[in-house]
């Protein structure tokens, strides 16, 4: 196995202890409580992002990583790979749970693709912002960063709900729905540029950092 796969495997093993939290959270905020709940779609991927990145928040954990025969840029890359893949899984999982809840309540199993894709895109963009901040602030400021992050997501949730219901946004969303190829290229390109830039910044920060 490559070093990245081994580090991703490590992140999964470390996440095991939070499994119950993820399950409870998913059930509470799934459609059993409220249909198409943005707290499920937006917050579940963010929750996994925070958990994965913070697995190695302690200085001692960073020291452990420093003893491994793995280059620093691979350590950084593995964080993006773990967080990114879990964000996508969490987004899809949220959609599936919501569909099941709808089926259970209404007998109508509808997978809300737009919300799932939206949550994944916003999650990936947020990851591109969060990981460099994490490396820049370092383990000592990580707690503070997480509090800010949670507040930001909670406030952002309300703002996003507001924005999504405006007339202009509905027109834009319609355009995205009617032009899947163009919207895929625009969103995909924006995500790739954001994540690549973020990775370069994170690597530059972490390469010079004493651990």
């Amino acid at each position: 196995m490559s070093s990245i796969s081994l580090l991703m495997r490590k992140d999964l093993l470390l996440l095991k202890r939070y499994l119950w939290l993820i399950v409870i959270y998913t059930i509470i905020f799934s459609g059993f409580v409220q249909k198409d709940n943005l707290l499920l779609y937006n917050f579940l991927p963010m929750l996994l992002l925070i958990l994965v990145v913070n697995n190695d928040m302690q200085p001692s954990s960073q020291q452990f990583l420093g003893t491994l025969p793995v280059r620093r840029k691979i350590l950084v890359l593995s964080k993006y790979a773990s967080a990114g893949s879990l964000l996508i899984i969490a987004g899809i999982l949220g959609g599936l749970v919501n569909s099941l809840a709808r089926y259970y309540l209404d007998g109508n199993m509808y997978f809300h693709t737009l919300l799932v894709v939206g949550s994944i895109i916003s999650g990936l963009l947020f990851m591109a912002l969060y990981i460099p901040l994490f490396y820049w602030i370092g383990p000592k400021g990580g707690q503070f960063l997480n509090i800010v992050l949670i507040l930001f997501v909670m406030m952002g949730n309300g703002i996003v709900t507001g924005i999504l219901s405006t007339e202009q946004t509905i027109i834009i969303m319609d355009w995205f729905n009617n032009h899947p190829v163009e919207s895929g290229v625009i969103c995909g390109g924006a995500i790739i540029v954001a994540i690549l830039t973020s990775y370069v910044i994170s690597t530059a920060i972490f390469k010079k950092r004493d651990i």
Partner: protein
Amino acid sequence: MNAVEIRNVSKSYKNYKLSNVSFQVPNGYITGLIGPNGAGKSTIIKSIMGMVIPDQGDISVLGQPIDSERADYKEQIGYISDENIYYDYLTLAEMKKIVAPFYSNWDEDLYLKYMDIFELPARKKIKECSKGMKTKFSIALALSHHPKLLIMDEPTAGLDPVFRRELLELLADYILDERNTILFSTHLTTDLDRVADYVTFVNRGQLVFSEAKDEVLDRYLIVKGGRELLDGDIRKEFVGLRETGVGFEGLSRDRDRVVSLFGNDVMYQTPTLEEIMYYTAKGGIKHV
């Protein structure tokens, strides 16, 4: 060949500076890195491990120059820290499952042998283990991939004397293979009196000496005599001096010189590494 070569390494922090340190760790021997707390031992070790990026200087490990972007050389290093660096909410078995695949030379049988010798419970969580158990587990992980270089940062601090002695015996076994090398940082110099071949002494971020232990012990000398023998020039002959109401005790780094100065008027004693460290760290003249 040297297992580690450190050339002109400097590192500055807010309240501390490692200044232009150069020394070698000879291949096939145990080298002790000694110095008081805060002397710079951990900074040197972390620089070798690529965890600390020196402001200047070069480091080579097992013949390869290292920088922050090289890590393959760590396959050949077993690292034992003075503190727990593992995820303490995992069990020993889970932690091993994370570590082992990173090393192509991982020897599962050897790992199980150490777990057995150290009587370590694989299903116990790391946070529930005692300090001694955590150190034993670190040793088991560090040795199970057949490292050529074993780097230990204060491994015996906080351990009971029985296990400290066992650890030293283990190191003696490991070093029987002449391809293996140990760099052993400690401020408990009695451990090194027993096992070290070479000693590197750092104090306040500066290198005091780095040479064969026997040569150090042959060169340094403790002198004990009456105060009437001391004057300004004589005091300067000592690295450190301790004066009491009736006499003095001083450490000289030049055995031949002090013997020619004092002849039979004083008592001489070969110092231990601890005494060398004490007098060098304290320096100056101490009145008791």
